[in-house]
């Protein structure tokens, strides 16, 4: 069952075409890894899906309904499509619990007790029940990213977008975040993941997309794309990532 359908998506910044007519269907339960060199448009593609960037052309269809451009519509879409950022973007003036509660309270207008119970559950799920009262400044990078994941999960998203969630982390902290994402995968969550962790993509993704020059250059199962790439540019990209061990 297709939950998200992208067609003819294009986006340019100041005359520079970053995304050039991408078509993409995302089915429920799919876990899509998006790969590509820097500047290939990975992050922009992701940011267009929940309208963090306004696409210049193309449509995005969510549950059979084309998404319009009115703010009220976009905020609803963003509640249904969660996003986790490279730089976490936690709110520094709120505790970990406050960060997770914020969407429930301000956007969903949930009462305080329910929001708190829900937020505590989400923090426990990412293994941070004991850090609820901590401010972001007192959390490690890995803990921050797990709070950010809990914040996205609290909104019950049908689709999760991860924009290089481990790229800003010290190497020894990458594992804990990937562990959380893996457990979400095991729950059968639908997700799109921009990442440089090729090994992780190979084991967790159900489909791999390789982007180049703002278009889908090659896509298929992890085996097809990562082990037996057909296109030259995909091969060149994989060759450059020597740390890639399957």
């Amino acid at each position, binding site marked *: 069952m297709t939950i998200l359908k992208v067609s003819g998506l294009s986006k340019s910044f100041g005359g520079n075409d970053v995304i050039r007519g991408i078509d993409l269907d995302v089915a429920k339960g799919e876990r899509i890894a998006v790969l590509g060199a820097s500047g290939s448009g990975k992050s922009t593609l992701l940011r267009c899906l929940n309208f963090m960037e306004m696409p210049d052309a193309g449509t995005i269809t969510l549950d059979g309904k084309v998404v319009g451009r009115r703010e009220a519509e976009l905020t609803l879409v963003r509640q249904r499509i969660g996003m986790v950022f490279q730089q976490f*973007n936690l709110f520094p003036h709120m505790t970990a619990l406050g960060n997770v509660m914020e969407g429930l309270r301000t*956007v969903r207008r949930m009462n305080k007790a329910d929001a708190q119970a829900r937020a505590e559950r989400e923090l426990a799920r990412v293994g941070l029940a004991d850090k609820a009262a901590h401010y972001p400044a007192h959390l490690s990078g890995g803990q921050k990213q797990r709070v950010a994941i809990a914040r996205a999960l609290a909104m019950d998203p049908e689709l999760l977008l991860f924009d290089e969630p481990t790229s800003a982390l010290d190497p020894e902290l990458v594992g804990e975040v990937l562990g959380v994402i893996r457990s979400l995968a095991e729950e059968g969550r639908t997700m799109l993941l921009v990442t440089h962790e090729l090994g992780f993509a190979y084991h967790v993704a159900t489909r791999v997309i390789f982007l180049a020059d703002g278009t889908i250059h090659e896509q298929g199962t992890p085996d097809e794309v990562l082990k037996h790439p057909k296109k030259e540019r995909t091969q060149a990209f994989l060759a450059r990532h020597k740390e890639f061990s399957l």
Partner: protein
Amino acid sequence: MAYQWDFTPVFANADLLAQGLVNTLKVTGASLACGLVLGLGFALMRLSRQRLVSWPAGFVIEVFRTTPPLVQLFWFFFALPLIAGIEMTPLLAAVVTFSIQSAAFFAEVFRAGIVSVERGQWDGARAIGMTHGQALRRIVLPQAVKRMIPAFMERAIELMKTTTLVATIAYTDLLFAANEIAQKTFRPLETFTVAALIYFVVITAFSLLARQLERHLAVSGESTVH
């Protein structure tokens, strides 16, 4: 023959000085409150991508930053009532002038503060479905305001000094009260010296408070904007 200082006539009129000080604080407080609200409005207008919205705010800010406060005060007190056909009291003229004037400065402080909040904070807020207004109110402004506090305090102190201009349109602030006492008692030296000292004590107290607050913010690791 050395001058014989005599402060007793000044102290005999202490109640008038006290009333003047209260009025000074009243004008300062009212202008500060209105200026903050108006300044936030100007800042949001300035940040708008709609030129029809951002340009008028920019124009008002420029005009009020580039003309002398006393000229503004005279304009609002003597000229505006004739144009608008309204009654204008000295107090109202002062509060209107100083509110818009502080708003013009606060607008820049607000704008700098809002711009200083990283883009990622807007992203984070929008990603959980917040509207622009919710993101501004819940996420961006609380962080921005904390960084703006020193600039606000500095401006508030400047404002209190500027309010002495109301004495020129005969509003009984501390300076005007001192002038009345000086004329009544023929003791301008003592009266104006006492008035200057009162200003000094009140303003110094405020700036010490401001410095304390700034140090407190510095300790908590917050950067500030000016």
